[in-house]
Structures are given as C-alpha cells and as structure tokens.
C-alpha cells in the first residue's frame, strides 16, 4: 500500500488544516495531502478513491487547485455502488462546471443512471444533470428527462421537472417536448411536484408564445383553483411557514398567473378575484406573508388593468414603505420603481417618504431610493427635490457622495428652469462634493456659464466666495480658476451685479491670490495647475498692474518636473515679458462655447457634417475644430500692436476662415462646385483642386468649369508671370523700400513662378516663392499686398488657413496700413508634409478699414505652382 495514503482520514485532514496557525502552515498540510491523493490516484487505489475525493472537495473549497481529481469523479460515477456514485456526482458538480470538456465523458454514465432501477441513483443523476448540464448534454438526455416526468415516485418527477427547466434554458427549441408533460404536472397534488411543475410551465411560456397560448387556454382556470385551494387550505404542519400554507407554492403560482395574464384580458379577468383575496387576506406581519404580497403586487401590476386591484396593490406598497423592517422598505422601493411605468401619479404621492429613504443609514436602501427619486423628478418638483438632495449631500457618507452628486448634477442639468438656478445648484454640489464630480459635468457647467453673458459677473463672484470655503474640491477649483481667468475684470469691478447679490470688494491682487492658492494647494493636480497658469496669464493682461507678480508666480513653475507645466511656465513668462504688444489680443476672452456641440459630443455622437443651413454656426465636427487650432495660432501671431482684435468679429471668426459660411459657394455663379459639398466638408473644399476661388480672375472661367483640370490656371499663370526668370526680382525692385530682403533664386533650387493669389477691384495680392534646397518641404512666401484704390487702408490684416498637412507660419506684416496705390509685404512660411503629393492650398481673408469702415475680402488660393 502507498505510504502516503495509508494515514489520514477526512476528519483528520480537516483537523490538521484547522490547526494550522498560519497560511503557510495550511499550505504545507494541503500540499502534503494533495501529494498523497495524487499518488493514490496514480496507483488507481479503489479503496481510498471515495475518501480522496471528499478530501479534494474540501481542499477545493479552500481555493486550491484540484483539477487532477476530475477524472476520479468520473471513475466513481461509473462504479456500481450507491455510495461511490453519490460522492462521485457531488465531486462532479463541485469540481467541474459546464464548460469543461471532461464533462462530455460523463454523458454516457448519466444516461445509464437515468435508466437505473434504483430511484435514488436516478435522483443523483437528475440532480447532477440539472446543475451542470451543457447544451450538448441537454440534447442527448432530453428524452430520458421527458420520460422521467412520468416516473412513479414524485421525488423523481420533481427533479426531472427542474432538469427540464435547465434543458430548456440551454436549448429553447426543446421546450415543445415538455409542454404536455408540463401541463400534466399542474394537476398534481404533491407540493414538490406542483412547485417544480408550475415553474417548468412558466419557463416554457417564456420561450414559446404558442405554449403560452396553450397554457392560457387550458390551464388558467385550473391554476386559479389550485391557488384558491392553497390559500384557503387548513393548517398543515408539513407546509406551514409562520402560519401560512406553503409560501413557495403561492409565489410560484402567482408568477405563472402573471405570465398568463400579461397581455390577455380574459385570463386577467379570470384571476382577479383570487388576486384580490391573496392581496387582502395574506398576513403581513411575517416575512413569508410579505414575500407572497410582494409577488402578488407584481402580478397585479403586470396583468391587464383592473382599477380596484391596482389601488389595492399601491396601498400595499405604501404600507411596505412605512414598515419598520428594512427588508420590506427595500422591496417597496424596488417595486415602486417598476410601478412607475404603470402609475407614476401613485408613486409621486410617496415622494416624501422615498426622500427620507435616501437618507437612510442602509446603503442598499439609499441606493434604491436615490434611483427612484431620480426617476420621479420632473420640471415641477425639481427645485424642492434638488434642494433636499443637496442638503443631504452635505451630511451623507463619503461612499455615497459620488453617486448622489452624479444624480443631482444630472437632475439639475436636465430640468433646470433657468440658468442662474442651474449655476447656483452646480456651485453648491461642487462645493460639497467637487472631488466626486466627473469631468464632463464641470465642462458642461463652463459651457453654460460662457453662454450666459449676463451671469458672468455673478458667477465669477460666487465662485470666488466658494473657493474660500471649499478649496479642496478639485472640480470647483478648476471651474473657479477658469472663470476668474476669463472674467477677472467683472470680479473686481462688481459689474453686472444682480439684485440678489451682496456686493463684495475684491482687489486685483485678491484675484491673483486665489489663483496662487490654487496653484500651490497640495490637492491640485496637473490639470488644475495648468488651468491656473492660463488664468494667471489672462489676469496679467486684464490687470497690467499685477503683471510683475503674475510673472513671478508663473516663473516658479519653470523648474517643474511636469513638462506641461514647465512649458506653459516658460512660454507664458515670455508672453508677459517680451510680447507686451500682442498680449491683450492674445488673451482675449474665450469665444462662447457652443452648447449643442458640447452636448452632442458628450452624448458620444458627433454631428455627421456641418449642417448646410448654417443655423448653428459652431457645430463643427471635432476633427475640423482641431484643424482650426493651428491657423488660429498663426493668426494671433501676426496681429500686431493695434490691430482690431480678431475675436471682436464674434464667434464665427473661425468658421468664416474655414469657409463654413455656406453663403460663399452659392454666391459664386461661376463655381462648378455643388454648394452642399462645399458646406459639408471644409477640408474637402480646401483640398479640392480646381475649385475656383471666388475672386479668381475671370479669364480662367472656361478652364475652371472643367473641375479636374487644375493645370489650366497654373499654365496660364506661367505665361503671365514666370516665363521670364527675372520676373520675381523685377517685381521686388518695384516693392523695394519696404525693408525686406528680396528673395533670390539660388542656383541649385528650382525656381518657382510667382502668382497672383488674389485680385479684386481694390486689392491685389501676389505671392513670390523661394525654397531652400536643404529643406524641400518648406517654402518661404513673400506676399505683396497692393492697394489699387485711391483710399488709404488702415488696420490691414491678412489671415490665412491651411489644411492639416500644411503648417503655416506668418510673420508680421511690414505695416498695417496701406497708402493709396501703395503696397506692403508680409512673409510667411509654409511647410508641406505631403510635398510632391499634394499641392499647397490656402484660404485667406483680408480685413481693413476705409475711412473707419470695415471691409472684408476673402478667397481661396489654389493656383500655387506644383511641387511646392
């Protein structure tokens, strides 16, 4: 005999494991036992197989791997005796699950045992089949189970019925075979069989509508009678639970009646009386009775409407809700949630009680109640409910704050009657639970704030106050920092005071103080700090007197280990120090953020294309908005001292630049482009070679109508300006005196003809190109702007936008005013990452004033020479 397996019995092993003082000790015991069991398995030791498996199950329960014992289960199941089979099946159910291949090997043994003469062995097989059967096994063994539904012993019939349920769940098609035997079980008297039989029929009804019809016709009355008999039956100790006759059977009958009554008036009618009886007569002082009532209410709510019954059911829930037992209150909340779709008025009546449940000490009840309240909120009750919830937020437990804050934000956002109320509530939530508020929520708040110009002052002052009390709430700090950066001037001069506001005195340095606190606070993370840096920069422009101090605060981050902060710090310092002249323009207030775009993006659905109706000017899809960022920077770079602020033209500045303004294509009768196409995809527009720019010289019309033919205009340009290599330099001579070095064609680099990029009755723009051979992707362009009119142009500003594959850098223009018939120049550098594959294209806009009157001219330049 094996030296290992000789010793320990099951109870000895358990004792040894329990005696282990440390986890390591326990592992050692288990390891030793497992070694012994493996050895015994290898010897194919029959005497101890039984005991070994029992030990393995215990070891398995402790969480150790026991896969090596799986085959032993099969061997035990295959052996003839009942004790071996009993432990074998137990092991099978415990150590294996339906997904293991090994299970297929057991199908044959199961089949034999299902046909065994010993009914207890049949019972074991049914139990195993019911607990772990896979779809394949279900198909193989369904006939056996079907036959066993008529077995003489009721204990086998009930097991077979539950097996049938498992089989139907695995293979719904097999449900047909069980309709008749299932219906037969409903007439049984044995409670076990009746319970399982009713359940089987419920399951069949769920998978097959024909079966549902069949049961509805044939069995509804019988089931009603069974339920009545059970409800009225005298005391029977065998089935009594707390004075109630077999609550389990009650519940299952009610459940099947629910399925039968749902969507069928006749069947519903048939069960009305008994439901009324159960609902009104069942004792509700014990859990068993309440379980029945709970089920009964569900059935009443599901079957076809009967006013009286509904009232009864809602009353039961009302009673449940005021019950002292937490369990009962919990299920009442649960049930009310489902009743909401049926009768929301009735549920609304319990609002106050439900609100109390939100403040319960039990997390499960809180959660249920909060979800229910969330569904109960509407435009009429949002104010009091939000007030209650926010008040509770202040005292609620940390674990619950996150959920609660999220729900409040969602309610407030959805039902806010006016913006000021929304902002107020959000500030309260942020002050209480800002740490738990998700990013998109406070982003949404900022979007709303920017869209409410009359509340800018109010909001920034409220945030300023809040910041003093709740400086550790991350998202509050972020919103506050952002708003102070944008609206610092309103904070200090108390402008836009609302009647309800208390005036506060904030000096310029106070404003800097709070931002400084935010940047230095230990809870602030990189995002907050980065936002604070921007706010400081903006303040430096709003309050020039604080400039020095701001500079020193920003400077403190020059050594930050976080690249983002370090870079911001460096760049912002240089903006403050070296670029005084452009600072105020650069740091203009943000354009109003578009609510529709934001909410669309939040919902995860981007607008598919820019709407051609142009109704909401800012609904640019993401990608395009990004593309716009680069030109924006370029444009800001060029705005010198006293250029008109680009943002002054409003928020559609970017669009205009990108050609979203859809009136433009339709305004060109020459254009062969379909307007919708031009409107729909800006990039496409930019890139579509051969699309005429609106002010292109009329002579090329014929060529341009053939859309693909982009050679034509360039060819014509060739003839105009660059057949003679001296053309560029001669032009430069004309322009001499403006101080910039004329570009010279170097020997090795190919010469590119200059072009007339734009010409109108009042203005002509010429581009002259040079390229350095060591950097073929980059083209230097000198733009010559010539005033063709007898008027002086002031505040002259040239702006340009390029598609993504290009990079554009604009140097400041030589002057911002154009004398009559005079000209100025501006150099720019374009880097074409697709050089050789895609030609340069550009959209441009020129703005200037004639006698103080604004003039705008714009166009698209796509006659650049090839190969740039």
């Amino acid at each position, binding site marked *: 005999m094996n030296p290992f397996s000789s010793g320990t019995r099951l109870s000895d092993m*358990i004792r040894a494991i329990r005696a282990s003082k440390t986890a390591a000790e326990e592992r050692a015991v288990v390891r030793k036992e497992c070694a012994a069991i493996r050895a015994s398995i290898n010897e194919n030791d029959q005497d101890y197989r039984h005991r070994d498996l029992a030990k393995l199950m215990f070891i398995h329960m402790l969480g150790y791997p026991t896969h090596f014992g799986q085959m032993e289960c099969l061997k035990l199941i295959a052996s003839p005796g009942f*004790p071996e089979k009993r432990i074998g099946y137990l092991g099978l159910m*415990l150590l294996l699950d339906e997904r293991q291949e090994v299970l297929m090997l057991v199908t044959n043994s199961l089949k034999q045992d299902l046909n065994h003469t010993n009914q207890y062995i049949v019972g074991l097989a049914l139990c195993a089949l019911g607990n772990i059967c896979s779809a394949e096994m279900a198909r193989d063994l369904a006939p056996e189970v079907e036959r066993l539904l008529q077995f003489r012993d009721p204990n086998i019939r009930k097991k077979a019925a539950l097996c049938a349920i498992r089989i139907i769940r695995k293979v719904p098609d097999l449900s047909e075979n069980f309709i008749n035997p299932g219906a037969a079980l409903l007439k049984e008297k044995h409670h076990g069989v009746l319970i399982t039989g009713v359940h089987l029929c419920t399951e069949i009804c769920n998978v097959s509508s024909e079966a549902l019809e069949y049961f509805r016709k044939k069995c509804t009355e019988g089931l009603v009678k069974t339920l009545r008999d059970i409800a009225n039956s005298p005391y029977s100790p*065998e089935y009594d639970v707390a004075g109630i006759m077999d609550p389990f059977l009650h519940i299952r009958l009610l459940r099947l009646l629910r399925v039968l009554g749902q969507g069928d008036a006749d069947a519903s009618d048939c069960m009305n009386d008994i439901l009324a009886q159960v609902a009104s007569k069942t004792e509700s002082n014990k859990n068993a009775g*309440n379980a029945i009532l*709970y089920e009964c209410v569900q059935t009443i709510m599901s079957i076809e409407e009967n006013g009286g019954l509904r009232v009864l059911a809602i009353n039961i829930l009302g009673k449940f809700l005021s019950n002292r037992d937490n*369990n009962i209150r919990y*299920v009442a909340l649960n049930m009310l949630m*489902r009743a909401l779709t049926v009768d929301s008025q009735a549920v609304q009546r319990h609002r106050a009680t439900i609100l109390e449940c939100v403040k319960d*000490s039990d997390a499960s009840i809180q959660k249920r109640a909060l979800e229910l309240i969330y569904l109960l909120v509407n435009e009429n009750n949002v104010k009091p409910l939000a007030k209650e919830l926010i008040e509770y937020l202040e005292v609620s437990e940390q674990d619950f704050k996150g959920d609660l804050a999220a729900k409040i934000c969602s309610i407030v956002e959805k039902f806010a009657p006016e913006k000021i109320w929304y902002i107020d509530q959000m500030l309260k939530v942020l002050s209480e639970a800002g740490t738990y508020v998700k990013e998109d929520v406070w982003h949404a708040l900022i979007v709303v704030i920017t869209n409410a110009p009359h509340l800018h002052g109010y909001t920034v002052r409220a945030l300023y106050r809040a910041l003093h009390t709740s400086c550790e709430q991350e998202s509050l700090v972020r919103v506050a920092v952002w708003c102070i950066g944008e609206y610092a001037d309103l904070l200090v001069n108390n402008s836009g005071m609302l009647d309800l506001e208390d005036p506060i005195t904030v000096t310029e340095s106070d404003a800097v103080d709070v931002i400084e606190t935010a940047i230095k606070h230990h809870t602030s993370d990189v995002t907050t700090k980065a936002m604070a840096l921007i706010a400081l920069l903006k303040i430096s422009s709003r309050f020039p007197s604080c400039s020095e101090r701001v500079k020193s605060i920003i400077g403190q981050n020059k050594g930050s280990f976080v690249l983002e902060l370090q870079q911001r710090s460096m760049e912002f310092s240089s903006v403050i120090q070296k670029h005084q002249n452009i600072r105020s323009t650069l740091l203009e207030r943000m354009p109003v953020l578009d609510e529709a775009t934001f909410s669309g993006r939040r919902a995860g659905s981007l607008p598919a294309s820019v709407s051609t109706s142009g109704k909401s000017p800012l609904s640019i899809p993401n990608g395009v908005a990004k593309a716009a960022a680069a030109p924006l920077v370029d444009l800001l770079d060029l705005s010198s001292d006293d250029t008109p602020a680009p943002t002054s033209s409003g928020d559609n500045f970017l669009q205009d630049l990108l050609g979203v303004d859809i009136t433009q294509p339709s305004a060109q009768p020459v254009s062969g482009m379909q307007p919708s196409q031009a409107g729909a995809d800006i990039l496409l527009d930019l890139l579509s070679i051969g699309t005429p720019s609106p002010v292109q010289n009329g002579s090329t019309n014929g060529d341009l109508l053939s859309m693909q033919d982009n050679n034509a205009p360039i060819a014509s340009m060739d003839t105009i300006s660059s057949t003679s290599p001296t053309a560029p330099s001669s032009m430069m001579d004309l322009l001499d005196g403006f101080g910039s070095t004329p570009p010279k064609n170097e020997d090795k680099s190919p010469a590119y003809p200059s072009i007339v990029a734009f010409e109108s009755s009042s203005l002509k723009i010429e581009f002259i190109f040079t390229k350095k051979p060591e950097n073929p992707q980059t083209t230097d362009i000198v733009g010559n702007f010539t005033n063709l009119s007898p008027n002086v142009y002031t505040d002259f500003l040239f702006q340009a936008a390029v598609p993504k594959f290009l990079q554009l850098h604009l140097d400041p223009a030589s002057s911002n005013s154009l004398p009559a018939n005079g000209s100025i120049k501006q150099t720019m550098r374009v880097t074409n990452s697709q050089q050789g594959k895609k030609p340069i294209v550009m959209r441009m806009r020129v703005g200037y004033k004639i006698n103080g009157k604004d003039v705008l001219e714009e166009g698209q330049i796509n006659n650049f020479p090839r190969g740039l």
Partner: protein
Amino acid sequence: MIGCFGRRYDMLDNIHFVLLVSRQGKVRLTKWYSPYAQKERSKVIRELSGVILNRGPKLCNFVEWRGYKVVYKRYASLYFCMCIDQEDNELEVLEIIHHYVEILDRYFGSVCELDLIFNFHKAYYILDELLIAGELQESSKKTVARIISAQDQLVEVAKEEASSISNIIAQATK
C-alpha cells in the same frame, strides 16, 4: 402592457450561486448554478464576503452587487448568501435560506458551524435535495429529511456489506 414587468421573463431567474461564509471570512460551502470560472469564483467570494461581513447588524439583508442582488442572512457565526437577479423576489429567497437552515438544524440536531465543516458533504447533499438548477424543488422539510435519511441508509447498508464481504474474504483466506 409590456413595461419593465415584462423584462424579467427574458432572463433566467434563478439562484446563481449559494455561498456560506463564516464571520472570519472562511468559506464553508459554495454551490454554483451559473457558470463561473475557477478564478472568477474566488474573486466573487473575496469581493462578496468583504461587502457582507462589513455590513452592520440592523441593515436590510440585500446587497446590490455587479447588477445582481445578494440576499444574505446571518445565523450564529455563519452567513448564508444567495445571489439572484435584480427582478427576483428577495423576500422569498430569505425564506429559502431559512428553509435550508431549518432542514440542516433538524438533520444535525441544532446545527453549528463545526457540523458543517466536518460534514460539509452532508450539507451539500441536503442542498441538492432542496435546489436543482438554482430552483427550489421541495417545500416540505419532512420530505427532504426523509429522502436524505433513505440515502444515508443505502450508504450504511453498502458499508456493512463491504465489511462483511471483507470479513468473509479474510476468513476464507485464513
């Protein structure tokens, strides 16, 4: 009317698993009626015992967990837990737990944790007479007790036979 009442019938409404955990967090019985991989099982047990053992005494007996509900009840040092779907009748499951405990009590004669440790297989046998496929099969405690004792009897008889056979063999080979 197909409201949210109709939804429950699309899913399998059964007990997904049964779990017995001691107050110290030791597992005393696990029974899985829905497929969970071994790793998943230990994770579930760890997670749930953490939640349930930490709940205060007077709270309700239901815990919402991963979109399911766990109904639990404490008897002496043991927590009996059953996991069900959101839409199931929690109160009934409490009754099922109590039903099981009463049967155990009757079988062992005022059951204690030690009984369930050393006779864990018996606890499983009884559970198997009570639930199959996560559904209740018998509402009579008496019937369950009768079937269990009949099967225990079979085992005893087999043991006696085995020992008498080995006696006969021993005598024959003397």
